[in-house]
């Protein structure tokens, strides 16, 4: 009576063992056509490879690839992971995606595809940005994301810091709070799943203070609750606080404290596994910064192509090679970028400058290194 099911079970076992054995032996042989490149950063590779169940580390083929570049070119659009709800960085204006982060994506699209409008902005929540980058669903993550070692190890490769930020606090103007010590026992609203949350816990623990956390997953709920009075304080990156404050019903009734409790370097990131793509995006970022250094703007890019400065000519592709041929870009890729979105300073001023579309935030650490800030890029040569 038991023979039939037993026979079936045994055959299933044998078959699955056979299949598992076949798959364990040569995943790269039968797998997707691109070579399996080891994670580019090199950090915690031992943990990553060692934990993959049943997989002995096969001999890794050399990390070259370019599969993301091919994918982007064949698709014809750049998939940019960003957001649509943060004024200044990624938001909607007349049904069009604009913002500092979105403009960085447009810059990359201009360089690689020749068309800054060939960008598909995917709205990602804080919970999804990591997995979206890990699975390669987006080609570039430009969503005011802090560069941290854990994220670099797990999510992908972080390119170049484009916004030096720090974590701060916003309080009602009449609350009388001026320092962290004043916040002992306060209720603090924070977005869950961010470095902000961790820094907050660390800062208070270090000072021996205590607080009641109220966490929400989406930014709108956090600041909505703060505005209602559910919390005494809200905390986030200073740029985000400035952005959100401009959207309050009465911005003057809230003040952003002059405290910074952490470093928040906001950096665009790319999925790991493609060095060429990594270098391309980095180069575009370098180009934006160098353009501001040399004084190349959206308005004068055409005439600057014939500038006396040899570095400018090299940047804009009139002569020389800053590596664009190795990366597979046209010589005038950078010129297209500047013509499309302007240089770093122009992008910043467009949204957060004195006549900024969203709000005004002093550049502070985001000035060029020649003006006392931290914005500095390797030379393009």
């Amino acid at each position, binding site marked *: 009576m038991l023979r*039939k*099911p037993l026979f*079936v079970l045994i055959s*299933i076992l044998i078959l699955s063992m056979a299949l598992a054995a076949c798959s364990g032996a040569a995943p790269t042989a039968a*797998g*997707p056509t*691109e070579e399996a490149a080891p994670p580019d950063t090199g950090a915690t590779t031992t943990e990553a490879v060692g934990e993959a169940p049943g997989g002995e580390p096969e001999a890794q083929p050399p990390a070259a690839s370019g599969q993301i570049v091919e*994918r982007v070119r064949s698709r014809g659009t750049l*998939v940019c992971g960003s957001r*649509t*709800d943060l004024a200044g960085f990624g*938001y*909607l204006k007349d*049904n069009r995606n604009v913002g500092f982060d979105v403009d960085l994506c447009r810059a990359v699209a201009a360089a690689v595809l020749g068309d800054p409008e060939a960008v*598909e*902005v*995917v*709205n*990602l*929540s804080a919970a*999804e940005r990591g*997995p979206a980058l890990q*699975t*390669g*669903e987006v080609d570039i993550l430009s969503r005011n994301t802090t560069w941290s070692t854990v994220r670099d190890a797990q999510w992908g490769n972080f390119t170049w810091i484009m916004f030096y930020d720090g974590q701060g606090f916003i309080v009602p103007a009449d609350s009388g709070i001026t320092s962290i010590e004043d916040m002992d026992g306060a209720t603090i609203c924070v977005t869950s799943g961010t470095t902000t949350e961790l820094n907050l816990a660390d800062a208070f623990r270090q000072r021996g203070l205590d607080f009641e956390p109220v966490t929400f997953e989406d*930014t*709108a709920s956090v600041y*909505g609750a703060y*505005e209602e009075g559910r919390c005494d304080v809200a905390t986030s990156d200073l740029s985000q606080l400035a952005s959100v404050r401009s*959207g*309050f*019903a009465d911005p003057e009734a809230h003040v952003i404290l002059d405290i910074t409790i952490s470093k928040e370097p906001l950096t665009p990131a790319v999925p790991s596994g493609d060095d060429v793509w990594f270098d391309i995006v980095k180069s575009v970022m370098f180009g934006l910064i160098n353009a501001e250094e040399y004084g190349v703007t959206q308005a004068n890019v055409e005439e600057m192509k014939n500038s006396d400065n040899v570095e400018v000519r090299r940047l804009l592709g009139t002569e020389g090679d800053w590596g664009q041929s190795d990366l597979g870009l046209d010589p005038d890729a950078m010129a297209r970028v500047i013509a499309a979105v302007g240089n770093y300073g122009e992008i910043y001023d467009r949204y957060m400058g004195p006549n900024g579309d969203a709000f005004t935030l002093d550049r502070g650490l985001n000035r060029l290194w020649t003006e006392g800030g931290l914005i500095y890029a390797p030379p393009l040569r």
Partner: protein
Amino acid sequence: MATRSEILLPPAPPRPIVWLRQNLFSSPFNSLLTVLSLAFIIWILNAALRWVLLQADWSIVFNHPLLYAVGQYPREALWRVGINLTLLSLLIGASWGCLGRALRLFSLLYAAMLAVGILWPAQFETLTLTMRLALAANIGVMGLGYLAGRRPFVTGRRLVLSWLAALAIALVLLSGIPGAPLLPLVPTGLWGGLMVTLILAVGGIVLSFPFGVLLALGRRSSLPVVSIFSTIFIEIVRGVPLIGILFLASLILPLFFPPDVRFDRLLRALAGLTVFSAAYTAENVRGGLAAVPRGQEEAAMALGLNRYQVLTLIVLPQALRIVIPPIMGQFVSLFKDTTLVSGIAVLELLAVGRSVLGANPEYVDQQAEMLLFVAAVFWFFSYLMSYASQRLETALGVGER
């Protein structure tokens, strides 16, 4: 004993005073209850009406009709949505004509909904005269459909097929064909609002139905492998919350497939909803299959039909008729559950409302208005569908021989 020669009429409905006494004041306890209930109703109605008419500011609802309806769909491509709406009106009219009184209230309420759209209190820049006229034309199209539906060539089977065909056409129209000059691709990231809610709900039910039937048949199968696998699948999917399955679909689906395959977000949400709904449908269908008397199967086999014919010709038709009420209930439930996809960044109606709330500081105190509007829309559709399903049951003769 004399027999009566006149027909006895049923007793006349009681005069109002008698009715009041019977129903509301029949005992001291009852009278107390009546008084308390009346007080409660008066208090609530007073507070609610005062709030709705005097204090509430409905501008968050009235100023953005297109956002609530279609999200960020490019405004120059709205004619495609218009064609879909016309198809829908035509088919609703045809179904009304074919099925008769069962769908009368449903169709009239649909027309009322279109009328609300026509009379929407927004400025003409947001909801242009052309759009309003188009909505009015749809009422006429529905009438035409009704007249056509009454003709004999419109049978039930053709109706079902045309609904399915319309669904496919609608999806193609909305998403566009790469390379076609008139139908440029519109990425699903731009779709939003009530349109997405309806697509997810209808698509979910239509797709989950065949899977559900297969799973139910698998569970009842005498082959242990198929039966065990189906049971495990159904129990696992029914045992986890829908938001967990949606999350799995959204975050992990790309991992399960080769890295080159890129999954559309809407598709992931649809896949999650389909899998979830299929498991529940499977349980409903299983109940229906069990309710078909075993004698039917045996008689069919005695007549010489093979297993496959028994299933498709005898058992399934009877089972599916029994199962229509729970399936409609499942549809209503799925319709309400589409709100959960806002957790995986698909902008359906509720998510659109919340994003309008968050993006505009002038609406900061209007959460209640927006939420009540969304609740009202969902209530209207759900109640309508439950009502239509009850009428469909009687029209299709469920429960009768």
